């Protein structure tokens, strides 16, 4: 069975990619992901804001109370070389590249223009096979227009593309008025891949403590619907590779995504829930399913259910809505 696929110019041995998660914080785990069958690893995101915050916190807290009281002019040993998040991240890339043969994709969540460019360059220098830009951005300012938000994405992409030679993917949220056009613009701006979709850390409320709480649960298989739709719609219409992420818990979701046209399928939740070795199980099940149905390769299956290839393309648009209503009627109103 030929599971090979090409994702933004990277030759992958199969479409299963471990997406950004705490699993990639450790080289040993990255190695285990490779051993379990993952075709590539997206590292956890380097958050520029977090690095800045940590730098500030470290500066503030190590100097707090210093030079104020004659008996204690400082409270911590003087340390010459601190390794902040960035250095450790880059070091991890280096070590991961040495440890595994599969592509190691760095993930970057920038804050400032300089941050996006500078960190992307340093990731490339550290040996990242590609960079995934994790544009996590909530336009909370109600003066910001949709156009401005879109421009921001395009601008970030352009800058990073201008700074590095390795492939650059963009992980996106679905919250654009016209996502298809947005994808097109990013494609034209040089995106090597679009990763659909980002899961936001959405706040929750603790009603006993009257506090806003931050948490992110694992994804559910039902969450594949939105990415599935857009991958099916975009397949064949953009030059960029497409990666699906969200809701992959079994071979079924992988197969669906590939059929929609995904070049790579990413998962984290399933591995966090079932352990790293579960990747092997997923691939085995995909292979078994394909064998049972006589598929010879992933390429053969890729895009078979995309908008361009399905018998009734309207199913991806208004039709989907109609069909659900019809089903609803037939099930309960007969």
């Amino acid at each position, binding site marked *: 069975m030929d599971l090979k696929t090409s994702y933004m110019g990277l030759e992958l041995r199969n479409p299963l990619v471990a997406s950004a998660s705490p699993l990639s914080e450790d080289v040993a785990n990255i190695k285990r992901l490779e051993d379990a069958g993952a075709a590539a690893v997206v590292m956890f995101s380097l958050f520029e804001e977090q*690095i*800045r915050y*940590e*730098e*500030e*916190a*470290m*500066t*503030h*807290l*190590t*100097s*707090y*109370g*210093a*030079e*104020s*009281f*004659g*008996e*204690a*002019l*400082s*409270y*911590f*040993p*003087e*340390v*010459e*070389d*601190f*390794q*902040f998040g960035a250095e*450790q991240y880059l070091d991890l890339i280096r070590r991961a590249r040495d440890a595994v043969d599969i592509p190691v994709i760095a993930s970057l969540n920038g804050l400032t223009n300089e941050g996006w460019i500078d960190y992307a360059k340093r990731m490339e220098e550290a040996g990242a096979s590609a960079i995934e830009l994790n544009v996590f951005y909530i336009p909370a300012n109600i003066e910001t227009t949709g156009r401005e938000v879109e421009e921001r994405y395009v601008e970030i992409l352009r800058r990073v593309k201008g700074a590095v030679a390795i492939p650059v993917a963009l992980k996106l949220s679905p919250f654009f008025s016209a996502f298809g056009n947005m994808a097109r613009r990013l494609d034209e701006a040089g995106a090597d891949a679009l990763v659909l979709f980002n899961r936001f850390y959405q706040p929750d409320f603790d009603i006993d403590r*009257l*506090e806003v709480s931050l948490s992110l649960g694992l994804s559910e298989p039902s969450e594949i619907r939105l990415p599935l739709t857009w991958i099916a719609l975009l397949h064949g219409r953009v030059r960029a590779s497409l990666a699906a992420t969200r809701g992959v818990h079994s071979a079924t979701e992988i197969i669906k995504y590939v059929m929609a046209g995904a070049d790579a399928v990413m998962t984290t939740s399933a591995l966090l829930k079932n352990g790293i070795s579960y990747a092997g199980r997923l691939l085995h099940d995909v292979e078994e399913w394909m064998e049972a149905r006589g598929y010879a390769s992933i390429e053969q299956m890729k895009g078979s259910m995309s908008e361009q290839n399905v018998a009734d393309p309207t199913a991806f648009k208004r039709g989907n809505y109609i069909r659900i209503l019809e089903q609803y009627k037939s099930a309960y109103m007969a």
Partner: protein
Amino acid sequence: MTAKRVTLDGNEAAASIAYRTNEVCVIYPITPSSPMGEHADQWASEGRENVWGCVPAVVEMQSEAGAAGAVHGSLQTGALSTTFTASQGLLLMIPNMYKIAGELTATVFHVAARSLAAQALSIFGDHSDVMATRSTGWAMLASSSVQEAHDLALIAQASSLESRLPFIHFFDGFRTSHEINKLDFLSDEDIRAMIPDPLVIAHRGRGLTPDRPVMRGSAQNPDVYFQARETVNPFYTQAPEIVQNVMERFADLTGRRYRLFDYFGDPEAERVVVLMGSGVETLRETVEHLNTRGDSVGVMQVRLYRPFSPSQFLKAVPDTVKAVAVLDRTKEPGATGEPLYQDVVAAFSEKRANGSLLGDSIPRVIGGRYGLSSKEFTPAMAKAVLDELAREQPKNHFTVGIRDDLSDTSLEYDPDFDVESEHTVRAVFYGLGADGTVGANKNSIKIIGEDDNIFAQGYFVYDSKKSGSRTVSHLRFGPQPIRSPYLIRSANFVACHQFGFLERPDMLSHAADGATLLLNSPHQADSVWDQLPCAAQKTIIDKQIRLFIIDAYRVARENGMGTRINTVMQTCFFAISGVLPRDEAIAKIKEAVQKTYGNKGEDVVRRNFEAIDQTLENLHQVVVASTVTSDRGVPEIVPATAPQFVRDVTAMMMAGRGDELPTSRLPEDGTYPTGTTRWEKRRISMFAPIWEPDICIQCGNCGFVCPHSVIRTKLFNQSQLDSAPTGFRSAPLSGRGFPDTRYTLQVYAEDCTGCALCVEVCPASSKEKSGFRAINMAPLEPVLDEVREGLQYFESIPDNDRSRIDFSTVRGVQYLTPLFEFSGACAGCGETPYLKLISQLFGDRMIVANATGCSSIYGGNLPTTPWSMNSEGRGPAWSNSLFEDNAEFGLGFRLTADAHRALAKKLLLKLQGELGSELVNALLQSPQQEESQIREQRVRVSALKSKLETLDSDDARRLLSLSNQFVRRSVWIVGGDGWAYDIGYGGLDHVLASGRDVNVLVLDTEVYSNTGGQMSKATPLAAVAKFATSGKPIAKKDLALQAISYGNIYVARVAMGANPQQTLLALREAEAYPGPSLILAYSHCIAHGINMQHGLRQQKLAVDSGHWPLVRYNPTLREKGSNPFLLDSQPPRVALKKYAYNEIRYRMLTRTHPREAERLMALAQENLQVKWRVYEEMATRGDPSFHFTREE
């Protein structure tokens, strides 16, 4: 070859030599010598090698006694070994010092000389400590400047190896140890040239080895001890010549020539002052100045004080001398004179006795004391001494620098006498500790010091308060090397980094005529003038001061730097002062910022750069008006209602005028009134908590945790509301049965430090606005008048009746008046809430023995102290003995109480006939467990006293003097982990084992907080501390389990932030337990590297993670047949790192040694689980297993 020039402080200058010339550095932190050990530790952790290519072993011990023992051991086995110490630390080394000298062992101890604790502790500099060691047989070499601290460190090392005498190399604590100055740096090659290998090999060869077995340290008998003691004489005879020869070699190498006794001044002087240490520099300046005016005076610097060479001394004295004044920076009460004076007198008289001097040619010699505890020693004082020598009948045994109206020892001096060179730029900066002023100034000195043609000096005066502390930086720059080891009295540049400081009387007093004043002002250039206090306006006009302003807080804030205005103010200094060309200076500041913050992140650097650029745009010169327009006076230091002592004495110290207090005003035995912080409204926070009575559930949590006792509650009758001022807040008392009672919570807002722990702990929220609690921080200024009025009314409400309060709940305790209030501890301190709590519970019958450390500083450092008294005049009596002996000291309190009570009981029974058996029995049988019982006992004692006063017998008078002992006395032994786990551990262990009724409260911050974050045995595994830069590899000592092993000690581990009720319960049980009790109290600390506002949250996480399991071991339960071990917290339920990595002390390691951090954290997690299992097993053990006699 030209020597490299660097700017260093004295500690680093000395440590740099010590480190490079030794193989072993064993240390224990003590101010002001701690930085020497810290530098050594840092260099070792960086892998720096000594001149022989080895990284010295740097080891922190449990005490200076331990350090001396370890040094003795490493010396005896042939390693080049050293230590750094001061004051009480040096005293603890004395026993070993006799041994080391007796065995003719080469070593140098570097001492930042400091006062000894007598009537009070002082961290400041004088020679009391080194003088206390002069009989040990050690050679003593005194440095007078930062350059000398560097050079003589090497000369001492070389001389010691050659002479085989151990050396104390000392320099003045703070004045030299902490002064930054420019010096010629000795290279490794210089050091190698000074210390020939054969000397090192010979030292090594004298070490003990089984290959050449010998024994040393025998016990000798009357037959030989005496003779053996005399065998060392030749070594002492030769030593001065050896030292001088080493100095000559040093001069050949470096061009800097030193002599055992160096004379400066007119070669034909008639008047000469003899002294050692930094004061020499002052005298040299003064002598030079006076001689240019035609005087004929001189100064003799003593460098080698021991062995004292009379012949060398006399040789150095000009033959023309008629009068000599010997200045000692120490006091030896009862002696015929201070030590150096006696040596000089002896030198002259021995010479006369030998017949080498004729009677008439002997100069008159007088002695005097100066500069104790870093008391300023200025050219004016030096001149006074020289003037005194010119008198016909000069005063002997004088003092200079103080006004002694008690014994009339002091010399008058003209404070306006000044010798400063007009070419020297003299700048004084008034800042807050928190705003980074000192750091920026140290930086400026380094920047300026890089210019080969400019010399620089910096000295920094710190506050005795740890929160809201003020710093004063004294910087000098000039074309000539700068000596002047005294504060600037006439500054041509004054920077005031806080607008409010202008209200201090001393702010502009040291500004020279025509000086420049740089003011951080929230007001604009066109409006600031009218905002200045009247006195400031007047001074500015009179002295023709040029005024510049900048709104530094705005510039800092706009560049994301919060309240760190250091870079902004530093830029202004360079822009205005003209010390360096402006552009060059700006470029260098940026360079320095890159160097300082580069390792901490690019963003921090960028923000600083932006702030620097914006500073110049925001710096404005103010057109000074020609007339005074303000009528704003400077507020009174203390109100007229304060007690007389506070008004006359304390207020002077508070105003920064303590130097003016004459001896007659000060208590002669160190006894001071308590409760003086209440007179000092420091208003250090711009924010204070505001109470919302409608939301409040009256739980008492906020007051419970307030580290500064600024939140108080009272109950009062509804009817009293009529006289309350408008805006006075109160609410009906929640709870049934008190319909007419109102509840009020008062914030002592001007005493608040703004830590916001109260807000963090408040459980009540507004239903309409999430996040708005029953207590919230708000700007103080707009509500200040209302708050003051409310406070005045609050204080008029009578205190709550203690006998009616429920002591067993947090809710009840809020009504007890704290007798520990408004301390100078850090904002949000984790220790003080515990002290406040015990003062509320037991304060009126409590006596406190306090180990030296943070708690003795915020608890006992003048001018104002927090231990207080109640409206009846009762409250904690407090004392600090030493660091190492606190448990023993407190045991002494108990022994007195027990002895006096026993005697009182005996007398009471003897007088039973006269007193009536009912009263006698009641007095002796009262259980005094509940507060109501204690109140009843007080009534009985009062009745007893009344009766005794009517009896005319010796027994009655004796009993009267003891009758207060019938009220159960609560003895508290308080200290930090440095004391309990390390230096005082042996004593603590012994006191716990004594079975006596003492209560030990260990305020466990898990690190030496007061001396700046050195590792203790309480420091947890995986945490970073000084001397554990790579993370502490060993787990924290379990002091609780050790104490529990005795079986009869009440032990508790508490954390107020995790379970305040358990804390309260444990403290009450401990106090009630009639034997020894030990309470280990988790105390969050700025040395943990946390936002102190989250201190309580961290306490909870410490417990939830299992790092700090809450336990109680109550022997009374065992007596009742139950399991005495109670585990009061849940099994670990969050990962240790969830707790630990909120703190810089742990997180730092993940950024310096990530893999090691991971390894140690895993180890710590594992260790914690194992410990938990032990606890769990103990808690679930069958009751009989805790009994001495088990019935199977």
